[in-house]
């Protein structure tokens, strides 16, 4: 049976296609993209008035499986991803046990095939047990299916070890994703160090805790002539450092997350633990710099850092509350509302930053809408508004500071390998 998507506004970054087309999908593959295609005996999705883009690719999420299935598991996590328009997600290795061996990689890949709504790509650790002491078996991780390595959640504090990781990983052509946080500078702070931390009496994390390590990693990548990907950029100084490094020819790519261009530290006011994330929400100046970095191409991709937590891990004292927020189901509306609507990014830019670039950085054959390609497709209405209701999240967790926000942009259909997993906003 064929699937025909009619009259959608097709946008693709790689092929440059940008206009109203019909798409024919058969056996999970895009067979034809053209005008006024008529076929009988096919399933039909009418995409009139909507954008048809490559399925979103998330280079940074936490599925919590194995080990923390009470927060999220592969089924609920990928359901949440599908509702958000993501067709491929790369999950970070801070599971229990961590993804530092091929057994866990195989477990995730197999379980995703059985229970997952979308494609799942595991990210391995940089160091054994994420302890920051010895390199993990990076070659073996890559061979087993890891698409990148990262100790996300923790920095690799030892600079010499980080240098070795970059050198060693480059032999296997696997991307190193760095969680930049100088733990001594962060010094157990729980939010951005600034006006809000001063008036709430919470210990602050200076923005330099991030930027200092961004600088270190850029210098190491430059020195070793290897490439590096900087996770969740949140500060003005980090954006400047990356911009300058790119000018010098350093092989760096960078990501930010929707909360770093849509919220400031003010969201933590009244001890709102839903806004507790790591790195912490910053100031208006940082938000503006992140937006400018997205606009001028310094920041290559938008990742969710989807970090589900159980309500009991959030409904407690701010110091004790877990860091992170549910990301999949609000990412696209936040991008539309805060970046596309004000004219900072075009839809082509969004496709580049949420489909094409992430898939390139992870070495996936995704993120492109073209004939002969796997039919991973997302269909969105960027004019329709919705009010975010965390109780409707498909994620097991409901930790989001965006509950009640009125946002523009609705995911209508998510098609994975030619099969609609979300149809007319409903998870199938």
């Amino acid at each position, binding site marked *: 049976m064929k699937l025909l998507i009619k009259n959608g506004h097709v946008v693709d970054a790689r092929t440059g296609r940008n206009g109203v087309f019909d798409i024919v999908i058969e056996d999970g593959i895009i067979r034809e993209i053209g005008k006024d295609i008529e076929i009988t005996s096919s399933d039909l999705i009418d995409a009139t008035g909507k954008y048809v883009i490559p399925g979103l690719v998330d280079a940074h999420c936490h599925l919590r499986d194995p080990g923390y299935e009470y927060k999220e598991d592969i089924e609920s996590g990928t359901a949440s991803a599908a509702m958000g328009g993501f067709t491929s997600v790369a999950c970070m290795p801070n599971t229990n046990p961590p993804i530092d061996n091929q057994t866990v990689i195989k477990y995730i890949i197999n379980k995703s095939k059985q229970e997952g709504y979308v494609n799942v790509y595991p990210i391995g650790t940089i160091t054994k047990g994420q302890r920051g002491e010895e390199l993990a078996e990076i070659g073996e991780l890559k061979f087993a299916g890891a698409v990148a390595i990262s100790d996300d959640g923790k920095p690799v504090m030892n600079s010499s070890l980080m240098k070795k990781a970059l050198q060693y990983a480059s032999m296997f052509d696997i991307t190193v994703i760095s969680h930049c946080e100088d733990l001594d500078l962060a010094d157990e702070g729980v939010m951005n*160090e*600034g*006006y809000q*931390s*001063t*008036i*709430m*009496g*919470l*210990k*602050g994390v200076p923005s330099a805790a991030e930027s200092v390590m961004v600088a270190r990693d850029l210098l190491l990548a430059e020195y070793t002539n290897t490439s590096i990907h900087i996770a969740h950029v949140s500060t003005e100084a980090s954006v400047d450092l990356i911009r300058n490094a790119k000018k010098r020819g350093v092989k760096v790519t960078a990501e930010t997350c929707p909360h770093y261009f849509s919220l400031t530290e003010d969201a933590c006011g*009244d*001890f709102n633990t839903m806004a507790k994330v790591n790195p912490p929400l910053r100031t208006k100046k940082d938000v503006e710099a992140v937006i400018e970095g997205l606009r001028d191409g310094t920041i290559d991709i938008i990742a969710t850092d989807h970090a589900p937590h159980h309500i*009991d891990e959030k*409904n*407690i*004292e*701010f*110091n*004790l509350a877990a860091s992170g927020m549910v990301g999949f189901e609000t990412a696209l509306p936040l991008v539309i509302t805060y970046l596309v609507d004000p004219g900072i990014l075009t839809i082509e830019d969004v496709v580049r930053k949420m489909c094409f670039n992430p898939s390139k950085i992870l070495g996936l054959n995704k993120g492109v809408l073209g004939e002969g390609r796997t039919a991973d497709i997302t269909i969105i209405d960027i004019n329709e508004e919705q009010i975010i209701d965390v109780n409707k999240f498909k994620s097991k967790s409901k930790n989001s500071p965006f509950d009640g926000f009125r946002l523009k942009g609705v995911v209508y259909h998510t098609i994975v390998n030619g099969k609609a997993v979300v149809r007319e906003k409903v998870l199938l």
Partner: protein
Amino acid sequence: MNLKRKDLLGLKDISAEEIEYILDTAKTMKMILMSNNKKTPHLQGKSIVTLFYENSTRTRLSFELASKYMGASSANISSTASSVAKGESLIDTGRTIDRMGTDVIIIRHPMSGAPALLAKNVKSSVINAGDGINEHPTQALLDMFTIKEVKGSLKGLKVAIIGDIYHSRVARSNIWGMTKLGANVCVAGPATLLPPLMEKLGVKVYNTVQEALIDADVVMGLRIQLERQKKGLFPTIREYSRFFGLDEKRLMLAKKDAFVLHPGPVNRGVELTTSIIDGEQSLINEQVTNGVAVRMALLYLLTRRGGMSEAAN
């Protein structure tokens, strides 16, 4: 007037009128406190629980005596920080206390915002007796009461707060409260112990203690936590007392009729010299007495919300 609020979590979100009302009520309470018969029926039939996750003999005793003098039945629960870490939920503890018919829960907690979290989840009134490095509103109220007693008003007074501002909930509450009552508050201390962007709170930040002291009407020393030195926030106690401590020579920079406050207990010879602590300009002992009066006032006003008769007055 009536206090409409259920809780007293801090002085950040309270009006100048409310503060004045509490301080006025405390005047009456001080008269009771100074009399021979310290038994009044203001809190008869009320149940008050102190829930302390941090040790504090002074503050706790002050609250307990305040409750007892006014006829309340009181109980106390001590809990250590380790039980917080063990995951005994503050909300569950609070709800349990609530169910036992408690009217007021007085909480001290090592984490900022804990009283606010508790207040959101219980029916009882919650009084913050110190949370993390956030606020210690009853201490600030007693400080303001003490100043008013001597100076009549805070309006236009220069109040210099000296020391570890970063970790001081006393300083934070005083800054909120005193600026609302019209005082000119300034701070000085080691740069490592000053939180960023203090100026936005309406406070003047000085680089030296001397500058802060010039023409001050009130000088407040803060307790230095000796473990901060081990964390590298200042080099040695000796250096601290040399550059940031208060001695008689430095105090001469302040106005002649200036006086000295300290939330106690004082590290003698570190924040203040013994001659200042025991000297004529010190109101440190008066602060202790006033603490009981202010807490009596507050307990009375919070339990009266919902329209108990004025007859008890």
